[in-house]
């Protein structure tokens, strides 16, 4: 193994197609035009000394170490800022250059501590390397002069010295070690796009300053880690490196947080994880990261993790730790008993979007082959099921059309119902980079989110629509495009059904769909709708990115189709820089859908009623498969309450916290006789479980995740599972206990079975992933290397289908009792139900869920910032603290659902998408009133949770 050393070429790659040949130290090298001499030289294998250059950011030319001599030119230009020219003859090492470099290094070192042996960067310090490279043997200037190194000089205070800033939980800033190369400042600006760092002062007094000379935690810093990665010294260092030491080997793997699917190097010392460093060859993230993937992995070793299987007779009993064998035989006999007693359809399972493709495939296989029914569903039910349905109907595939690189060529970016800056931060950084290059941004969101108002990337149009009016507003955009003749007739005639287009065009052109009419119900000024439509249709490459603000509505599927219509009508499908892209919430929600997790679909989105498809699996699995779709999650819960559904196997999902109408979920779970929860922690759902199977983290297993761009990325085991088994092994052992003949020795064999049975995965294998790094499905004979862009040359379904999108207002309406609309969302530092991030230092950024409320609504109710308020809907009530802000419009309130003690889903109702049952999380009519503290439900719930987490023979586990 060993540490993966990525080559730092010093400056970014040039995208020019024209090649230029030059000579560096007598070697000829050919590179694209616009490449720097430094990069060209590195391509030839010659590393020019450098400090301020790194290939994640543009050349800066400040360290004066990378100077070279060029034949026929005066002086010693810096190789990072000088582009190559044909026939150039470069010398990187002459006696003159050596003298200059040594002199520069002497100056650097004269103001740098000489504590290398005890320094955290020892062994990973570019300053140390450069001192070695230039042959520094002595510093003529001495160390006694003016400096930033020592707190005291000659017994007096040294006003230039600044203490170490340890405010950030994950890294430290030690100004005494800073060489002011600006790499951190530029990484924050160019890579992350937050601009939280600057150089304050000038000349010798210059120092890096977070915010306005503030500690990191008080500045605008979002803790993405780009600056720490860029720092060539120990000035910015991960606290884990300070604590443990330098890593000795690394493994490339995929982050298990959001649907961006960033590639990381897990840098290890033995089986201890030292740090996660984004991998530059990762095609989703291109060397960037966010606070979650980079730093928030501490949950893997958190004391709350359960490592032994547990069983109990009743949910009111304390847990009893048992052997794996006992747990499996208990489940097998219970499930068989329930099926014997209540029928074969009385049990089912839920696959996890957090687990690997292979694990998901096994869970649905267990249910279909072992339980002999189709009662399998997944958490995509509550997030992107409308995407699958909507895009399937219009285009013919249930996935986004582009890769993330495509955003680099977008001219107009429309973000609908998503806040990538918080939910998909690495994609947001790539998007903002493109906006800073001149692309335009349109945002449809009820709130003024970080995405609307980010530094140097402000939205050109923000359409602050009333929650629940997506269909109306998107149809109004289409109205403008059709009535003003902005549609792309050639594209539509070639690739879509023209008569369907005419029908749709006639529908959207009706006056009731005009921006002026829609303004009345959505609250968006007509002029903004018109302006946004014109910009999207005529601004060049138009790319749409959307999130859960689109899907989690009673008309979620309709909005997805409206978006698809918009892209087709303007010809924005089927090439780079355009497309329709769902920003998927979870690391493997795309994969879990691909793997046949829905009750009506076998892997590859093939309906269970298709005889040909069932034949494939029936032959392989040696069973007869049910040709009727099984139960969806809400149906399972309904059936449980009715008494016809009695047992469930839930892998890696906390339905009690994440699904709507918590009381109904609780009632359903409570009515079951055997609830099996397979998870890392005793989550909220486990309060109602009879068997708990400990899970393994993404660091402890092999497998693959499929991200939002359909990219299949490898997950690699970096440490042994602390609970003994990877999740796929647990499912396999359970299947064996139930009498199935499964003998997978490695997840690659599971993927082989997927490839063998699923046309869109036909060419996928671990060998191919090893070779290519990653591939995007479809990956088969027609596309052996995968498919970065879909629908090139024509739609998958044949002709693109325009579908009328009639706006139907949700039944969830405000009235005198519940006059405000609640909408929900996420914030950067926490992830989903927070099971992982709440068990890391990320809680320092977001320790509780707050209710955002407009000052007008707050004042009417006598609510001040920070007050406890009661939040009530017709489904239930909870209490949390208020945050008075103008980010939400009057009449709208907003909260996150990261903390179980808030239980925002006690409030949300059972309304759902008409096509897919995706719950309407984004609209709930509520009332807000002052309160003294947590509600009675919250207190009862907490007591019940505490009771149900007791483990026999152990002191009560503290949360």
């Amino acid at each position, binding site marked *: 193994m060993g540490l993966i050393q990525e080559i730092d070429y010093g400056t970014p790659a040039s995208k020019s197609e024209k090649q230029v040949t030059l000579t560096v130290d007598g070697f000829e090298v050919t590179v694209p035009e616009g490449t720097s001499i430094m990069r060209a030289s590195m391509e030839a294998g010659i590393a020019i000394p450098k400090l301020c250059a790194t290939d994640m950011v543009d050349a800066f030319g400040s360290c004066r170490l990378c100077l070279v001599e060029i034949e026929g030119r005066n002086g010693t230009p810096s190789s990072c800022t000088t582009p190559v020219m044909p026939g150039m003859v470069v010398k990187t090492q002459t006696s003159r250059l050596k003298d200059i470099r040594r002199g520069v290094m002497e100056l650097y070192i004269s103001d740098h501590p000489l504590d290398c042996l005890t320094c955290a960067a020892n062994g990973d310090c570019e300053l140390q390397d450069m001192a070695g490279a230039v042959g520094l043997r002595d510093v003529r200037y001495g160390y006694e002069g003016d400096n930033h190194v020592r707190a005291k000089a000659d017994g007096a205070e040294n006003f230039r010295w600044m203490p170490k800033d340890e405010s950030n939980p994950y890294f430290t800033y030690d100004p005494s070690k800073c060489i002011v190369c600006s790499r951190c400042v530029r990484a924050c600006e160019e890579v992350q796009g937050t*601009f939280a760092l*600057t*150089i304050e002062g*000038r000349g010798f007094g210059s120092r890096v300053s977070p*915010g*306005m000379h503030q500690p990191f935690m008080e500045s605008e810093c979002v803790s993405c880690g780009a600056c720490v990665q860029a720092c060539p010294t120990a000035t910015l260092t991960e606290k884990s490196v300070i604590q443990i030491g330098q890593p000795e080997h690394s493994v490339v793997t995929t982050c298990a947080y959001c649907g961006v699917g960033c590639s990381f190097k897990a840098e290890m010392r033995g089986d201890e994880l030292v740090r996660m460093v984004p991998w530059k060859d990762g095609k989703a993230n291109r060397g960037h990261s966010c606070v979650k993937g980079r730093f928030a992995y501490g949950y893997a070793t958190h004391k709350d993790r359960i490592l032994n299987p547990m069983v109990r007779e009743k949910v009111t009993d304390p847990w009893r730790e048992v052997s794996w064998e006992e747990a499996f035989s208990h489940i097998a006999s219970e499930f068989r008993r329930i099926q014997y007693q209540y029928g074969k359809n009385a049990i089912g399972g839920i696959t996890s979007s957090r687990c690997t493709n292979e694990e998901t495939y096994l869970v649905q296989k267990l249910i279909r082959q072992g339980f002999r029914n189709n009662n399998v569903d997944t958490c995509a039910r509550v997030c992107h099921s409308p995407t699958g349905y909507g895009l399937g109907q219009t285009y013919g595939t249930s996935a986004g059309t582009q890769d993330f690189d495509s955003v680099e060529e977008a001219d107009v970016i429309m973000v609908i119902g998503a806040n990538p800056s918080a939910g998909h931060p690495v994609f947001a950084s790539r998007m903002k980079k493109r906006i800073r290059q001149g692309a335009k941004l349109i945002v449809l969101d009820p709130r003024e989110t970080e995405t609307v108002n980010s*530094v*140097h990337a*402000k939205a050109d149009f923000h359409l602050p629509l009333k929650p629940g009016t997506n269909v109306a507003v998107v149809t109004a955009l289409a109205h403008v495009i059709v009535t003003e003749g902005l549609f792309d007739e050639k594209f539509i005639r070639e690739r879509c059904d023209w008569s369907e287009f005419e029908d749709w065009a006639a529908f959207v052109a009706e006056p009731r769909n005009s921006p002026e009419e829609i303004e009345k119900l959505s609250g968006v000024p007509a002029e903004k709708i018109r302006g946004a439509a014109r910009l999207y249709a005529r601004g060049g490459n138009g790319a749409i990115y959307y999130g859960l603000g689109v899907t989690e509505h009673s008309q979620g599927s309709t909005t997805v189709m409206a978006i698809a219509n918009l892209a087709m009508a303007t010809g924005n499908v089927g090439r780079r820089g355009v497309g329709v892209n769902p920003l998927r919430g979870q690391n493997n929600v795309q994969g879990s859908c691909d793997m046949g997790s829905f009750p009506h679909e076998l892997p590859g989105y093939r309906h269970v009623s298709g005889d040909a498809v069932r034949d494939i699996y029936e032959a392989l699995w040696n069973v007869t498969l049910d040709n009727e779709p099984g139960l969806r999650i809400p149906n399972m819960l309904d059936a449980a309450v009715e008494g016809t559904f009695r047992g469930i196997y839930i892998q890696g999902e906390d339905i009690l916290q994440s699904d709507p109408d918590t009381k109904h979920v609780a009632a359903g779970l409570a009515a079951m006789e055997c609830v099996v929860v397979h998870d890392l922690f005793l989550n909220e759902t486990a309060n109602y479980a009879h068997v708990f199977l400990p899970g393994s983290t993404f660091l402890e297993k092999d497998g693959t995740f499929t991200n939002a761009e359909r990219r299949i990325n490898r997950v690699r085991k970096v440490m042994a599972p602390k609970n003994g088994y990877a999740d796929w092994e647990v499912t396999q052992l359970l299947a064996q206990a139930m009498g199935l003949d499964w003998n997978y020795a490695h997840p690659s064999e599971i993927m082989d079975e997927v490839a063998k049975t699923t046309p869109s995965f036909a060419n996928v294998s671990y060998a191919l992933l090893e070779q290519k790094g990653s591939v995007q499905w479809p990956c088969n004979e027609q596309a052996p290397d995968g498919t970065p862009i879909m629908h090139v040359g024509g739609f998958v379904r044949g002709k693109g289908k325009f579908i009328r999108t009639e706006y139907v207002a949700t039944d969830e309406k405000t009235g005198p009792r519940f006059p405000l609309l609640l909408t929900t969302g996420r914030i950067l530092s926490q992830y989903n139900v927070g099971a992982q991030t709440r068990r890391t230092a990320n809680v320092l950024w977001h320790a509780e869920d707050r209710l955002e409320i407009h000052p007008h609504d707050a004042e009417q109710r006598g609510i001040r910032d920070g007050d406890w308020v009661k939040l009530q809907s017709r489904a239930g009530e909870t209490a949390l603290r208020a945050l008075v802000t103008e980010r939400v419009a009057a009449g709208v309130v907003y909260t996150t659902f990261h903390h179980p003690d808030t239980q925002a889903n006690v409030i949300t109702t059972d309304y759902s998408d008409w096509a897919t049952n995706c719950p309407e999380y984004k609209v709930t009519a509520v009332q807000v009133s002052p309160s003294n503290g947590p509600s009675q439900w919250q207190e009862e719930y907490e007591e019940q949770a505490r009771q149900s987490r007791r483990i026999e023979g152990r002191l009560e586990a503290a949360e």
Partner: protein
Amino acid sequence: MQHAGTDIADRATVIVNDLMGLEGPLLPILHGIQHEFGYVPSETLPVIAEALNLSNAEVHGVVTFYHDYRNHPAGRHVLKICQAEACQSMGSDHVAAKIKQLLGIGFHETTRDGAVTLEPVYCLGLCACAPAAMLDGVPIGRLDDEALEEISAAVRL
């Protein structure tokens, strides 16, 4: 006299709104703020940043780069003594020492009574009349001890 934070922000907003239409508005705005308050109060930085869609850090970087922008109020008068090469060759070292002695303060300091702030400056473009100084924006050339005593007395009035 100490202004309340909101008052400062309100007054800064007026200046920002007035000047933000200019091309490259940050420096004119900072000049306007300094003119209004006598220094650039740190509370105004987020106001400027938000209006110009910059980060607080960026504005802080610019403010601290320029010596002319102060982070605290100056004395009633500001006296700048040129310390650049031409003036040095004509004895600005002596001028600096003399004025420091007369006022009882060093560079970057303000007299206890708040009468005057003393600062070095690197070239006023008045080399022909070196050694030179600038008092409240008015250049003074050919400084000698007598002139310095006059200045010292005048600023104390």
